[in-house]
């Protein structure tokens, strides 16, 4: 039975739960796709989706591998500073609610490129907007692929990381190409409750067995304490690679001080202490602020999430939905950090692992500890978290793949390359584009094993924060905005963030001790440069603090310079964005528009 050798060491419970999740997701996708044949079917049905269903669906699409596995892994590896990620992932929706959700729904375009074109009457601008769907999408798919690779390598201990990426990527790509999983509300809503169940139940069982959240945090000595307060929590001894208690549990820890520590290590030994005392905390504060800006503004600019707001019946429902999303994902995000804290106390050997064997798999691995006391229950719990992980990267990867494929097939092929193509040719183009984008995502996913899942998703947020967020925020609230201003700000800000993120990743990959280090060795001098200039390293790793103001500033300056190009019917557009639907301005606007401009 050599062909089944990869099944050695596979736990039947874990395998069964994961398999059922994959089968159920694929089955539900095809079932609901067959019930709504055309895009307009979907949209018309979608317009009447209730607040509760829509909020569950948005949450289901939003909670990706980064939320399910990455946050726990990063809290385990970096401690307090990593808590900013779940908090801002959830609270970033407040900005969306305050400034964007209601007006965007009233304007009635279906996608962000549609909005970009409608607000500025400019097909050129649509093309720029489409490019950023792809940029943000690829940065977002890489961590999903790593989640897939880590999970498969955990379920089948015999197979390498890249095989998991290729297998899962191929299954989802094929599924999207064949027409399943079109982002149907029911499937996404189901995925949310599945993930909520899969993260909360194991946490409660683990806490009941090993001690509660507060006790587990309390077992780590804070700075100024000689030892942790005495408690009932039993800890495993930390390994050498684990950060010490005082820097782990306190702010400005390993995550935000990496650049300064690297710079200090390059100095002569006698200067290090003075250098660290002077620079460590201020730079760390800067890093924290830049991270917060990226995550909060980025949440308000994610294309695959914004699209969902059009399924609300009106602007008021859009606002209510946003609030329920914040509650649903806020409750969810309390749990992953608990996994991280428990992992530090109970499974410190993960600190020594790298790539797929490192802290990113703590959510999957931790429940097996229950097996020592309660036998098969541990396997069942681990099976549940594996199923949740599958739900997480499958739903987000499919959602991203659909929106990116749609952009490529609908906007690039259907509007730019061959506008005269017929329905059948466009269907073929959609399938071809799905395979192309899925293939690129799988290829990129194979390279990112040494990078943290959560960190990569943060980069996608940083790009969205410097491109879509300024575009939406400014075009909703400032009538003086012109197409040239919007394009200049969005392109410059977004591309700066993109280049900064790419450079950071290349530098980190060059440090890897495995095969990736060899492939990317030509980027090693970058790390030497950053050791000399830790401030530049921080501004590259977390670019939002300068790219977001840069984008907004450029939008204002260029718009002022081209003020004559403000759309002629700007007052009407602004009324449609801001006036309550009850006044019936939307219909009026459409009539005027079709009669006047011949659109």
């Amino acid at each position, binding site marked *: 039975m050599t062909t089944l050798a990869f099944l050695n060491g596979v736990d039947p419970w874990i395998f069964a739960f994961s398999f059922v999740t994959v089968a159920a997701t694929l089955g539900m996708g095809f079932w609901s796709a067959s019930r709504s044949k055309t895009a307009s079917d979907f949209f018309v049905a979608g317009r009447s989706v209730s607040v509760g269903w829509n909020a569950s669906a948005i949450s289901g699409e939003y909670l990706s591998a980064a939320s399910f596995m990455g946050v726990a892994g990063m809290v385990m590896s970096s401690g*307090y500073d990593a*808590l*900013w990620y779940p*908090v801002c992932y*959830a*609270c970033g*929706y*407040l*900005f969306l*609610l*305050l*400034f964007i959700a*209601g007006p965007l729904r009233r304007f009635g375009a279906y996608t962000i490129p549609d909005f970009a074109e409608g607000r500025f009457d400019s097909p050129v601008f649509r093309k720029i907007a489409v490019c950023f769907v792809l940029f943000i999408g690829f940065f977002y798919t890489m961590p999903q692929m790593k989640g897939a690779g880590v999970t498969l390598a955990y379920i089948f201990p015999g197979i390498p990381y890249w095989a998991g990426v290729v297998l899962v990527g191929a299954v989802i790509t094929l599924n999207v190409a064949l027409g399943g999983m079109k982002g149907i509300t029911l499937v996404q809503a189901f995925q949310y409750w599945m993930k909520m169940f899969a993260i909360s139940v194991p946490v409660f069982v683990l806490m009941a067995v090993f001690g509660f*959240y*507060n*006790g*587990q*945090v*309390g077992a780590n000595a*804070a*700075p*100024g*304490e000689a030892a942790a*307060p005495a*408690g009932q929590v039993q800890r495993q001894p930390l390994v050498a690679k684990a950060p010490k208690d005082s820097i782990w*549990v*306190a*702010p*400005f820890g390993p995550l935000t001080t990496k650049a300064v520590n690297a710079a200090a290590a390059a100095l002569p030994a006698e200067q290090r202490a003075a250098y660290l005392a002077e620079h460590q*905390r201020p730079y760390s*504060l800067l890093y*924290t*602020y830049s991270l*917060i800006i990226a995550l*909060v503004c980025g949440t308000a600019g994610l294309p695959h999430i914004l699209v969902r707001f059009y399924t609300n019946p009106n602007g*008021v429902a859009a*606002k*209510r939905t*946003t*609030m329920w999303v*914040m*509650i649903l994902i*806020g*409750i969810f*995000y*309390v749990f992953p*950090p608990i996994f991280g804290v428990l992992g530090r106390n109970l499974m410190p050997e993960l600190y020594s692992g790298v790539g797929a064997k490192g802290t990113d798999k703590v959510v999957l691995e931790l429940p097996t500890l229950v097996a020592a006391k309660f036998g098969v229950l541990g396997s069942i719990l681990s099976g549940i978290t594996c199923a949740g992980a599958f739900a997480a990267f499958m739903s987000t990867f499919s959602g991203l793949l659909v929106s990116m494929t749609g952009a490529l097939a609908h906007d690039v092929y259907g509007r730019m390359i061959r506008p005269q193509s017929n329905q059948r040719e466009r269907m073929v183009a959609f399938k071809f584009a799905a395979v192309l984008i899925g293939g690129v995502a799988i290829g990129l996913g194979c390279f990112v094993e040494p990078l943290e899942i959560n960190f990569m998703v943060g980069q996608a947020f940083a790009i969205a924060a410097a491109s879509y967020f300024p575009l939406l925020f400014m075009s909703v*609230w400032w009538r003086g905005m012109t197409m040239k201003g919007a394009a200049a700000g969005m392109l410059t800000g977004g591309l700066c963030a993109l280049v900064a993120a790419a450079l950071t990743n290349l530098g980190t990959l060059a440090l890897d001790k495995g095969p990736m280090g060899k492939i990317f060795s030509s980027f090693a001098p970058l790390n030497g440069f950053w050791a000399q200039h830790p401030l530049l390293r921080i501004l590259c790793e977390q670019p939002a603090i300068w790219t977001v103001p840069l984008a907004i500033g450029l939008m204002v300056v260029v718009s002022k310079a081209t003020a004559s190009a403000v759309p002629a019917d700007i*007052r*009407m557009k*602004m*009324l449609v964005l*801001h*006036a*309550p639907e*009850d*006044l019936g*301005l939307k219909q009026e606007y459409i009539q005027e528009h079709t009669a006047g401009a011949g659109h």
Partner: protein
Amino acid sequence: MPTPPSPHDEVHSEEFLRLLMRRQLKLSVACAAAFLVVLFGLPVANYLAPQLMATRVAGFTLSWLILGVLFFPAVWGISWFFIRRSIALEQDEVKSVKR
């Protein structure tokens, strides 16, 4: 004696749009300010008063308790307040036009 402007014209007037946007924006900015004070204030508190923020509260450090647990309900509160006020504003606007 000039006739009063019809509701239709009032909606399309410059004043109405200005009023509409200013009232909604004022509410949004007020809520955002409350949020940003907490969001940007916490790192400052961590920076300036590390000993205070490391105080133990039921096992958590104070800073961990705020960021890991209490932050979420605070933001729900702000969004609940915003939605109530914003819907009331919209009803107000509709009423003032249709009167």
